[in-house]
């Protein structure tokens, strides 16, 4: 039992962890994403989304995630309600 717990807490493959973390760090470093730029990006996303749906502006998060083959930009935002006649407007 103790061993199982130890195994659980010990990083099984720290190289993999390092690789993933570095992928994200280098992405940030290379893009030189300043907090200002990230803020501008968030505002633009909010603006576009707001044309189609009502969202919780404060809930938005923008992150870089390292997948196996690529790095993804992932944005999460809470949707309150989708407008009915967006296509028409």
């Amino acid at each position, binding site marked *: 039992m103790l061993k199982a717990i130890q195994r659980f807490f010990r990083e099984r493959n720290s*190289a993999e962890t*390092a690789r993933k973390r*570095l992928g994200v760090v*280098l992405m940030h470093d*290379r893009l030189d994403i300043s907090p200002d730029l990230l803020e501008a990006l968030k505002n633009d996303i909010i603006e576009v989304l707001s044309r189609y749906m009502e969202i919780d502006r404060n809930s938005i998060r923008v992150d870089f995630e390292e997948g196996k083959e690529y790095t993804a930009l992932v944005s999460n935002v809470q949707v309150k309600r989708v407008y009915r006649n967006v296509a028409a407007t």
Partner: protein
Amino acid sequence: MAGRTIVVTSGKGGVGKTTTVANLGTALAKKGYSVVMIDADIGLRNLDVVMGLENRIVYNLVDIVEGKCRTEQAMIRDRKLKTLHIIPAAQTREKDAVKPEQMKALCGELAQEHDFVLIDCPAGIERGFKNAVAGAQQALVVTTPEVSAIRDADRVIGLLEANLLKDIHLIINRLNVKMVKKGDMMSTADIVSLLSVPLIGVVPESEEVVVSTNRGVPLVHERGSRAGAAFQKIAARLNGENVPFDDDQDGGFLSRVKRIFGG
């Protein structure tokens, strides 16, 4: 004759730049080339002790650019190899004692008469770095398989490219193949894919390096040294020879390349 000017740089300190310069210079001179190694780490002179030439210094790099001596007067010839020379850094001067244009001029002058000019760059990305890279046509970026060293290497690669120095190759130093196999150290393939710069060689972590530095005799003189052999391979690749990568010693690079090319 126009020789090649190559800077060895890293960003992070202590990853093996000076060790690399000493061993590559020695290996290239052993091949019969005429080589000058410039210690551009002003204020933190080290290449002289790694080469075992610390007792012969009269003039230094700053003396040359200030016109206090002729270039040849500051060049110290190696004890064993007649075609190998170092230009030591000044120990008691500031990093701004040399300007980028002066480095450029000196490297150009040396490349007229020698096959290889190797520049040992200081750590960091400030003035000393800018001086050291100013006269180089080619860069070797050294990293260890650690998160912080790789991150700094990436910064340096970006800065080099921004300075239009695009002929860049990667050296991974202090690789521990056992740890890679256990999954506790990033493999050569991991690092190459993170940095996206072509690999020129992998040097294993080895106690021999410390012993050789203690003695002031570069490892490539030592027969049967694994780290020494690794530096010899890098020198051969620099020389355009086709030296294959070996999975066991190079930490899982070959299998990845094979996978990419469907071999």
